[in-house]
């Protein structure tokens, strides 16, 4: 909202320079964004908070300025020059829907001459960017900005039966508004009508047919109080925001209705001639009474930290228009009648704010609160940070994706989810899949992400499109699944789980250096294991399995301590085609909430070996389906105490292998705690190992 400094000076005896005034007002809560110099005047650009509709006018700002500086307030002259006849002789007002219009006043001026406004009026309006039209229209606009009360002038002669009916619009009723647009109204909108038809959208805009024109002689000046919610709704529904609707929907001063009307009528008589009715038809069936709010002076200090004497608090409140009322004087309590324009003030805390902001927030002394409590991080945060650190050290960048995804990214043509959720997301298997937005803002982005993978795949596509082929990303964040409906609102809240996802594609990195080969499943797995290790959980187990969004034969379920917590593998051909990926992409996702819920693996010391160990390699040809993991488990389960570990040396799947076979070279380490093992002992143990592998897996020793 723009305010002209010169205009403001018509209403106050303020002496502060424009910029100083702007600073003073800003520090009292009426934010001035900018001050522009404009032809001998200064325009103050306000950005007001929604609770202060009373400041949407010169009077409102003048009142604040006066209270802040002690300068006097000069109210405009309301004396009407030519008065004759009672309003009811010329018009009538009927309010059918008093819920939407608590007050409506109509006053008539007869015999006006419509012509351009005088220079001073044009100047005032132009200073704040308003376009002059004619004297009567300009006067209503002038008073709106001067006093904050929107007004409307009708050409009385064009009102059927010269009367006003305030009612809800009829179904299908149409009205051509002042901007020349034919508008279809609905039955919830309030209109101003004459005996037969709607002539204005109440509080929003007048109609074209009854507007003031060159030939107008008799004017009906409307001043009213409309229900803020109703005006907001109508304005929004019609897509029409006006200076009037902006103020009505925030709330105008219901006791200022007549004053603004008087001011308007006085100006019309002065500038357009004519005779005004001596009164108005003022329909105000239920008088609105402002609240009285108590103030215990000690509360000012208790809440603000300012020690303001009770007399000073009283002075500040009176300067803002609060009326001292009967209070419980014995307890030193004060009581104040809230001015009718301050609809935002309802409770004692509101009064404390009034006192504090005028007294000055800058006078509040700063202190740190005494601390009876200690700080703590979110559970598992230290482990989360450790994982992030390890992953970045391993060359992964952290992604943050928007929490909603396009429906087509999450669901296939048959309406099935494209991604298998992380275990534990759905509390009950198959439970109502997605959390769906009813009002998305990005076209199509209706689903709350059921997985972090669509976000990472989208990011990968973006990077590919910008020439980055080597992408390593991880992300942590909530994923969502709907819950079965329940009577309890809290219970029907969706399931939210913190997930952790990893993506690798392009050239692999080894020890921080380009490895000169394409990344594969094991780069993904390594990243996941490194992260798990950093979070100090037990060993992750990978079990070959089919996973919906992963490629058969290169996918695994991930378990921790027997509990399934995620999946990892190469992106399925179907999804790769959908994203137009021409290089393999590997993705993993785990339930981080579940992972962190498992206890932290303690660091435990075992004495360093005192005797050397012996490593024996064995190369075996076995069926490709026989996994390293199975062989390893088989060896360890033999119960050979001296067998300390099984490592992989090499996998050979070359052309010389028979179809469906591969060769694995394993290294088994043997060591005793109390002595050096003799060769014959190791030979015997190793022979047991080899024969177990041969027996259990049909493996053949390779030369």
């Amino acid at each position, binding site marked *: 909202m723009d305010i002209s400094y010169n205009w403001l000076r018509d209403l106050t005896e303020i002496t502060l320079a424009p910029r100083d005034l702007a600073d003073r007002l800003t520090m009292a809560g009426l934010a001035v964004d900018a001050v522009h110099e404009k032809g001998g005047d200064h325009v103050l650009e306000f950005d007001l908070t929604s609770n202060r509709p009373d400041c949407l006018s010169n009077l409102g700002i003048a009142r604040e300025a006066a209270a802040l500086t002690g300068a006097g307030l000069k109210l405009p002259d309301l004396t009407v020059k030519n008065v004759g006849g009672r309003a009811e002789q010329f018009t009538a007002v009927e309010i059918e829907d008093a819920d939407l219009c608590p007050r409506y006043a109509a006053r008539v001026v007869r015999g006006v001459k419509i012509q351009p406004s005088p220079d001073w009026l044009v100047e005032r309006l132009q200073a704040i960017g308003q376009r002059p039209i004619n004297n009567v229209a300009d006067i209503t606009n002038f008073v709106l900005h001067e006093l904050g009360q929107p007004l409307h002038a009708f050409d009385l002669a064009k009102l059927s039966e010269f009367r006003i009916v305030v009612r809800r619009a009829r179904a299908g009723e149409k009205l051509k508004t002042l901007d020349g647009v034919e508008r279809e109204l609905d039955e919830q909108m309030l209109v101003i009508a004459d005996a037969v038809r709607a002539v204005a959208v109440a509080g929003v805009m007048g109609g074209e047919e009854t507007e003031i024109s060159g030939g107008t002689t008799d004017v009906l000046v409307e001043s009213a109080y409309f229900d803020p919610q109703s005006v907001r709704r109508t304005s929004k529904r019609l897509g029409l925001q006006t200076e009037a609707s902006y103020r009505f929907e925030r709330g105008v001063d219901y006791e200022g209705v007549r004053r603004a009307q008087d001011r308007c009528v006085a100006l019309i008589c002065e500038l357009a001639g004519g005779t005004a009715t001596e009164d108005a038809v003022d329909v105000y069936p239920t008088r609105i009474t402002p609240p009285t709010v108590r103030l215990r002076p000690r509360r000012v200090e208790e*809440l*603000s930290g300012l020690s303001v004497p009770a007399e000073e608090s009283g002075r500040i409140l009176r300067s803002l228009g609060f009326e001292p009322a009967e209070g419980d004087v014995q307890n030193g309590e004060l009581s104040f009648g809230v001015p009718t324009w301050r609809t935002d003030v309802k409770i004692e*805390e509101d009064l404390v704010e009034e006192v504090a902001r005028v007294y000055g927030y800058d006078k509040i002394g700063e202190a740190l609160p005494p601390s009876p409590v200690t700080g703590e991080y979110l559970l598992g945060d230290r482990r989360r940070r450790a994982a992030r650190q390890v992953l970045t050290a391993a060359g992964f960048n952290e992604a943050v994706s*928007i929490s909603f995804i396009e429906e087509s990214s999450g669901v296939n043509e048959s309406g099935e989810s494209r991604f298998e959720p992380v275990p534990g997301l759905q509390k009950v298997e198959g439970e109502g899949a997605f959390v769906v937005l009813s009002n998305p803002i990005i076209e199509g982005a209706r689903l709350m992400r059921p997985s972090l993978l669509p976000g990472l795949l989208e990011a990968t596509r973006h990077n590919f499109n910008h020439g980055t082929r080597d992408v390593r990303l991880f992300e942590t964040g909530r994923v969502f699944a709907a819950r079965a409906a329940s009577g309890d609102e809290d219970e029907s809240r969706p399931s939210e789980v913190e997930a952790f996802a990893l993506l690798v594609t392009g050239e692999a990195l080894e020890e921080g250096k380009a490895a000169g080969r394409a990344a594969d499943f094991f780069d993904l797995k390594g990243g996941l294991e490194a992260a798990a290790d950093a979070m100090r959980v037990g060993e992750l187990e990978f079990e070959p399995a089919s996973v919906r969004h992963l490629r058969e034969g290169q996918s695994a379920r991930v378990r921790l301590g027997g509990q399934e917590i995620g999946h990892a593998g190469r992106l399925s051909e179907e999804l790769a085609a959908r994203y137009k990926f021409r290089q393999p992409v590997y993705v993993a996702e785990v339930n981080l909430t579940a992972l962190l819920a498992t206890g932290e693996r303690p660091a435990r010391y075992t004495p360093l070996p005192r005797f050397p160990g012996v490593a024996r390699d064995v190369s075996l040809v076995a069926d490709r389906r026989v996994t390293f993991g199975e062989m390893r488990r088989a060896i360890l389960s033999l119960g050979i105490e001296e067998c300390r570990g099984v490592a992989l040396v090499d996998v050979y799947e070359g052309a010389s292998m028979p179809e469906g076979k591969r060769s694995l070279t394993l290294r088994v380490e043997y060591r005793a705690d109390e002595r050096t093992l003799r060769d014959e002992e190791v030979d015997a143990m190793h022979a047991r190992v080899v024969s177990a592998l041969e027996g259990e897996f049909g493996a053949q020793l390779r030369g």
Partner: protein
Amino acid sequence: MSSEAVDYDAQIASVREAFEREFERFARFRAYEGTEGLSLDEAEALSREVKELATRHTAKKSAVSQLMKLVGRVPAEERARFGQLVQQVDKEIRGALGDVGVALAGRIQLLKTERERVDVTLPGRRPRRGHLHPITLLRQRIEDVFVSMGYAVEDGPEVETDFYNFTALNIPELHPARSPQDTFYTTDGLSLRSQTSTVQIHAMQRRRPPLRVVAPGRVFRRDTPDATHNPMFFQVEGLLVDRGINMGHLKGTLSEFVRRLFGPATRTRFRPSYFPFTEPSMEADYSCFKCGGAGCRLCKGSGWIELGGSGMVHPNVLRAVQIDPEEFSGFAFGLGIDRMCGLMYELDDIRLLFENDVRFLEQF
């Protein structure tokens, strides 16, 4: 003397001559300058030859050593003079060879150093590392500051019920913030939290006062994405409830926070404002970290940057979680992490934050 009298002087002269004849080709290397122009191979070959020369002229069987042995046989009256002369020849020979040796060794050292000289401006062999997201970096710093000030980090659901997102926060039934124009709703009638203030309510239900918590997290508002807006962004909420808490504590806390984040010279100012869930309310500004308050493009010439909204917890909010506002008071604040991020890194388009372009991420 007899015929077998020996001409000792002549012997010395002949030894000297013999050495000088052989040494002649090395003479110019006695000074370092003489070695300039020698290649490493030449210098090393010469160095070897000089060593051989030294062996021949200084070892036990060398001519000088023979002269040394003669000294004892020289008549007593000449012995001293002869001895001195032999000593001198020996010293001359050793001196000459030593000088050449040092000069050549210097030359060799220099050439080797040159040959192995590295271009220290070539890129280091550094491991490729990944980078944390700028929001995580800032969020962790903010958490660290508040934890050190005694706050517990809290979180709450991102999909919320009306009660937590609005009602308990004193946002009236018909408030525009509740409209589907501004807030995302799910088809089940729940909403995406529009501010982290929801965690205030969860936190006060979980912990009773005295309490102090901060809650960083995602919030959602129906803003069309553009260079300065995203429909999702990150906030951090702060809440402290105790006996005897006033606005001075709030000012002190936020001032301490910005000093720890942006440096001890950072100043703050507080302006009255309006939020449904605080009363009195205030907006906090801090002096621009770029220009120090003098005014620059970043702070739009004002010298101040908005920190966020704050205020004393509204009594209705306390009552919503059964805390007596006559007994306890508290303050709350909400800071925009993305906005701060955008300013700190001077991002010209805030949408970059969620595009996950590797070229962007690797800058942090």
